[in-house]
C-alpha cells in the first residue's frame, strides 16, 4: 500500500511512531562542515520529517546507527567486566538503496565471519528497519549502478519527498494500522538506472595476476597523495574495522569502559604490533589493501557481491581529492593488461 501525506500530517504520524521507535535520518548540522561556512550532513535522531536532508547525499553513512563510532563493550572494575546495556527500542533509519546493500556487507562481516555473531552488532541490527529514500538522479560521485547496488527490496517503508508532500510505500504490515485512514496513492520507489560515473571492476583471473597487481607501480603514486587520514573509511558504509581500547573513568579509579572505536586500514598503525613491527608501511600499500578488499578480497572470501557499494562518500570526503571510481578504473585497465599478458604467455586467447 502507498499513501500521499502532507509533511505536517506525516509529522503527526511520526510523533506516534516515535513512541515505539527511535528514528534516525540524515540531518543538517549548520556550519559544522569541514570547511568554513559549510554544513555537515550526518545521521542523528529526528523529531520531524522536515529535519531530513533528502536532497543531498549525507557525508557520513548510516552505519554509525548499527556500528557506532565509539561503543562501550564492557564496564570494568578491577574484578569484573560487565556487559554494556542497550536501548531496547526498535530503530527506524532513513537510508539510500546503496546503504541497505552496505549494511548487508556489514552483516556478512559481523554476523557471518568467524564462528559466532558479534553480539554488539547483532543487538542493534536486530532492531533496525529501513525507510528507503529515493535518490532521484543520484550525485556526481555515485557509481551504484556499476556495483549493482542501485536497487533493493529490503525495506519496510519507502519515501519520495515532493515539496510539502510526500509519497510513502508501506511494505511492512506492522506499519499498516498507523496509515489506515490516510489517502492512498499509486507509488513505488524509483531507482537510479544510470550514474554519471561508470566504473569497470577489475577481473583478476589468476593467482599470478593477483601477485602482479600487488606489485603494480600505480600504488606508489598514492604514496605522496594519500595522507593516511582514514577519512574514506570513516565515510564508507561497508568499512567495519575497529580497535578496542580501555578508558578509565578517573585518573586513580580502577573502573572504566572497554570501548571499540572505528579503525582504518589506511592508518599507519593499523598492523603495528607491540614492539613496533608492522606490515604495509607505505600509503600506497595501504591504499592497495583497501582497494583490493573492497573489490576483490571480500568477494573471494564470501562469494556474491563486492564489499564496495559505490556510494562514493570516500571520494567526497578525501581531502586529497582521490576518486575511488578513478582508482578502480585505473586498476581495471592495468588488470586488463596483466590478463592479456598472462593469456599471451600461455597461448590462450582472452
Amino acid at each position, binding site marked *: 500500500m502507498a499513501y500521499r501525506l502532507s509533511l505536517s500530517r506525516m509529522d503527526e504520524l511520526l510523533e506516534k511512531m516515535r513512541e515505539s521507535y527511535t528514528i534516525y535520518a540524515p540531518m543538517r548540522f549548520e556550519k559544522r562542515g569541514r570547511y568554513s561556512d559549510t554544513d555537515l550532513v550526518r545521521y542523528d535522531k529526528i523529531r520531524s520529517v522536515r529535519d531530513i536532508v533528502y536532497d543531498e547525499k549525507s557525508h557520513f553513512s548510516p552505519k554509525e546507527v548499527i556500528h557506532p563510532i565509539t561503543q562501550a563493550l564492557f564496564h570494568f572494575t578491577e574484578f569484573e567486566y560487565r556487559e554494556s546495556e542497550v536501548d531496547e527500542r526498535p530503530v527506524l533509519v532513513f537510508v539510500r538503496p546503496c546503504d541497505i546493500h552496505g549494511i548487508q556487507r556489514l552483516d556478512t562481516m559481523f554476523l557471518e565471519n568467524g564462528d559466532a555473531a558479534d553480539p554488539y552488532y547483532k543487538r542493534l541490527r536486530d532492531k533496525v528497519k529501513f525507510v528507503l529514500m529515493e535518490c532521484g538522479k543520484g550525485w556526481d560521485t555515485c557509481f551504484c549502478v556499476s556495483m549493482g547496488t542501485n536497487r533493493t527490496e529490503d525495506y519496510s517503508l519507502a519515501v519520495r519527498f515532493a515539496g510539502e508532500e510526500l509519497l510513502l510505500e508501506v511494505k511492512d504490515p506492522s506499519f499498516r494500522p498507523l496509515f489506515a485512514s490516510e489517502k492512498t496513492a499509486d507509488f513505488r520507489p524509483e531507482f537510479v538506472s544510470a550514474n554519471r560515473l561508470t566504473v569497470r571492476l577489475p577481473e583478476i583471473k589468476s593467482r599470478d595476476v*593477483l601477485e602482479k597487481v600487488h606489485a603494480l607501480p600505480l600504488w606508489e603514486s598514492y604514496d605522496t597523495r594519500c595522507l593516511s587520514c582514514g577519512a574514506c573509511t570513516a565515510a564508507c558504509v561497508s568499512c567495519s574495522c575497529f*580497535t578496542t581500547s580501555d578508558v578509565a573513568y578517573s585518573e586513580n579509579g580502577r573502573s572504566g569502559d572497554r570501548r571499540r572505536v572505528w579503525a582504518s586500514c589506511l592508518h599507519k598503525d593499523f598492523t603495528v604490533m607491540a614492539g613496533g613491527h608492522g606490515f604495509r608501511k607505505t600509503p600506497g600499500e595501504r591504499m592497495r589493501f583497501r582497494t583490493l578488499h573492497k573489490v576483490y578480497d571480500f568477494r573471494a572470501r564470501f562469494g556474491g557481491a563486492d564489499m564496495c557499494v559505490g556510494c562514493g562518500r570516500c571520494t567526497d570526503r578525501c581531502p586529497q581529492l582521490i576518486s575511488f571510481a578513478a582508482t578502480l578504473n585505473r586498476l581495471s585497465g592495468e588488470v586488463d593488461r596483466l590478463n592479456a599478458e598472462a593469456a599471451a604467455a600461455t597461448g590462450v586467447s582472452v
Partner: protein
Amino acid sequence: MTANIFKPDPYRIADIVHETELEYTFKVEAGVKVDHGQFFQISLPEIGEAPISVSGIGRDWLEFTIRKVGKVTHRLFSLRRGDRLFMRGPYGNSFPLDEFRGKDLVVIAGGTGVSPVRSLLKHYFDHLDEIRSLHFIAGFKDRGSILFADDLKDFAARFHAIYTLDKEAIPGFQSGLVTEHIRKIPFAGFADYNVVIVGPPVMMRYAALECLKNGVSKERIWMSFERNMSCAVGKCGHCKINETYVCLEGPVFNYTKAEQLLD
C-alpha cells in the same frame, strides 16, 4: 542475547618465572582444553587486550611466556603470584599433530618464537613414540635472551637439538643464526617429515628459503604468524591478509598458503 564472545574471564596467576629480564612465564590456573599453537586474548582492565600464544599446557593450568614490549605486557609484569588476570580463548588453529604422526619432525624457532612451540616440544618429550624423530633448532640473540634454559637441557637429552646464539658460542650453544644450521638436518635421510618454523617474520622467511634450498618441499613447512589483533574472532579486521584472517585460519599456516599471504 547472543553469547558474548568478547567477554574475558578472570584467572588466578599461580606462578611467575623470570626467563630473562624482559620475558616472564606466567602460569595461570585454567582447566581449558587448548591445542598446541593456539593463543588467548589476555585482558587487563584499564589497559586492554593482546594476543598471546600458549607456551605450556597442563591439566589445570596454562603457561604464557610474555615479552615486556607493549602496554598490556608492561602492566602484566607488575602482577604478582596470586593476582588475577583476565583472558578469553583459546583462539586460532594449531599445529597438525595428526599430520606429524609417525614421521620425522623438525622444529626451527627463533627468540620468542620458541614460546608457541614449547608446548608442542613438551608433548613430544612425553610422547616421543608418536613421531619417528625430532630435530630442534633454537636460536637466541645472546646469552641474556635464552628462554626455557631448563627445558632446553631436557629437550637436548631426548631430541636432536642444536642451540645457537647470533654472535657468540657458549657451552651448549653454537654461534650463528638458525638459518646457518638448517643444512645440518639430515632431510635426505627422512622417509617422510614436516618442518615447523616460528620466529620473527624475517627469520621465518629466510629459514623457509634455506629449507627449500636444502630440498624441503613447501608442503612440508608450517609457520605460525603473529599479527596485530583487537578481537581474535574475525571481526576487527586488523589481522586480515588478502581474504585470510590470521585469527581464524591461522596462526599456523602451511607454507603453500603462507607464501600466498601478501601483506
